């Protein structure tokens, strides 16, 4: 059984100028130990799709799906209370901006231990021990004193490590990383990606990596979903995708990469009709 299974996911927003469809009928499926990358340009609905899985969309969002199952639980029918038991524990998410994604008013320690208390009911000293363990695991030096630090006292890369520590605190089955390195320098990006891949390999959790950076896809994913204007263009194994992209959109995307440039001008993606460019 797939860890996460989604069929025909549609998300629309009630905006002042009418209904806006951000995600239009996406299918996804992910097994334990899988690394799935979702690529697509800005606004193509990558984040919205995953936020809907987490149940983190604002109230203005309308989510519908034929199937939306996580580890045997139907996410569509879940009460808010039951969802909270899963979210943050079995299914965790990290975000793009490490600086703003941590609460500036509380220490790192507080924010990590909070998850442990809520989901695992650990007592004070156990929480502390585990928090130190987690910080060590994500490669933060001097974890004991770092627990007392506030987010603004640390760098972006360190904060992203803390975010990761928080996400893996309860050994989730699925980790969704929404552009976890976009805000970081390449050297830091490398470290964070390496860390994520190592953790994934060590724990065998499912990992969904949202990104718009083709390079990151190439360096991390097993399988890739290409999304465009709310639709899935194609889904393929990573090698397949790079070797023989099926959708014209994917082809154009890869061609636009400067490193793939052949002439002295880059091939330009013209407007695609997402309906016809999609490959099922």
């Amino acid at each position: 059984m797939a860890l996460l299974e989604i069929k025909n996911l549609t998300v629309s927003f009630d905006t002042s100028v009418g209904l806006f469809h951000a995600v239009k009928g996406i299918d996804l499926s992910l097994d334990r130990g899988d690394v799935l990358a979702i690529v697509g340009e800005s606004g193509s609905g990558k984040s919205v799709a995953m936020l809907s899985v987490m149940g983190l969309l604002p109230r203005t969002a309308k989510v519908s799906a034929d199937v939306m199952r996580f580890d045997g639980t139907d996410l569509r029918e879940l009460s808010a209370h039951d969802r909270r038991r899963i979210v943050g524990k079995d299914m965790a998410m990290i975000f793009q901006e490490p600086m703003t994604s941590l609460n500036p008013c509380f220490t790192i320690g507080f924010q990590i231990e909070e998850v442990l208390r809520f989901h695992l009911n650990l007592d004070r000293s156990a929480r502390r021990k585990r928090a130190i363990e987690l910080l060590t695991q994500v490669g933060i030096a001097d974890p004991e004193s770092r627990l007392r630090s506030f987010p603004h006292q640390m760098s972006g890369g360190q904060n992203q490590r803390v975010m990761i520590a928080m996400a893996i605190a309860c050994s989730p089955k699925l980790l969704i990383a929404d552009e976890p390195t976009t805000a970081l320098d390449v050297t830091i990006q490398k470290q964070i990606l390496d860390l994520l891949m190592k953790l994934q390999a060590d724990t065998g959790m499912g990992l969904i990596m949202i990104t718009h950076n083709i390079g990151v896809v190439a360096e991390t994913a097993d399988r890739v979903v290409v999304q465009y204007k709310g639709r899935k263009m194609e889904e393929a194994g990573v090698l397949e995708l790079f070797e023989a992209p099926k959708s014209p959109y994917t082809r154009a995307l890869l061609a636009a990469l400067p490193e793939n440039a052949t002439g002295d001008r880059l091939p330009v993606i013209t407007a695609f009709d997402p309906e016809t460019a999609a490959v099922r």
Partner: protein
Amino acid sequence: MSAPVAETAPRKSGSMSGLRETWFYFSQNRGAVAGLVIMSLLVLIAIFSPWIAPHDPARIYNGSFLVPPVWQEGGDARFVFGTDAIGRDILSRLMHGARYSMLIGAVVVSISLVGGIVLGLIAGYFRGWVDALIMRIMDIILAFPSLLLALVLVTVLGPGLFNAMLAIALVLQPHFARLTRAAVIAEYSREYVTSAKVAGAGHLRLMFVTILPNCVAPLIVQATLSFSSAILDAAALGFLGLGAQPPAPEWGTMLADAREFILRAWWVITIPGLAILVTVLAINLIGDGLRDALDPKLKRS
């Protein structure tokens, strides 16, 4: 560092011009529209009060002192809202009083807006010691309770409507200066300002043409709210006997004159107070509506 910015351009809002868009969001807000309607009515009343008021506001009807409103026993059909202690028609006085309130609001806001913008712009643009000097002066003004400061100022200048307006403008002015300064500082570091600099714009152009128009949204909101503060403060000064001079039918002064009737003739107290409340409420509704319409953050969600 790259930060993908949400693509908003092709969306529908893109086809609306700034003003139309503001109006669109404003008109969605029922309270704000109600405020606007009331306010328009008040302005009309203020403009046309000499023609539509049933009586001369200063006309004393001997023998009709403290007549209650028509609907109350002892009321007189000539005086819809009754008469005051010396037989003047309250409705007519209220209508003419609207002129004072509108005048106070307009004058105070103009003075404090212009003063505040210039000071705030200079402080925020040049920073350094100019900024420190201007802001310390604003701090000094803000260190006093506004009403007390206005009170002392009016005492210094001599009681009277114009002096009251000046005093209120002075105490409201730091808010504009601070707001402008904050907005200017925020805008100054934006890249379009640097672009304009690179394009060769001088200080004056940068200040007034490039930066200032982008700071107007909070200023408009503050101006609206200050309009209501000005009316309230002027009424409070009038209530303390330092506002408009007799026989001007300014609302606060009417209230002050009516104080002794608190237990005897409810209408001379209740009605002018209600007029103040309704006016201020209407303006604040507009202010809130404007704020929401002009604040992109609230618009998006």
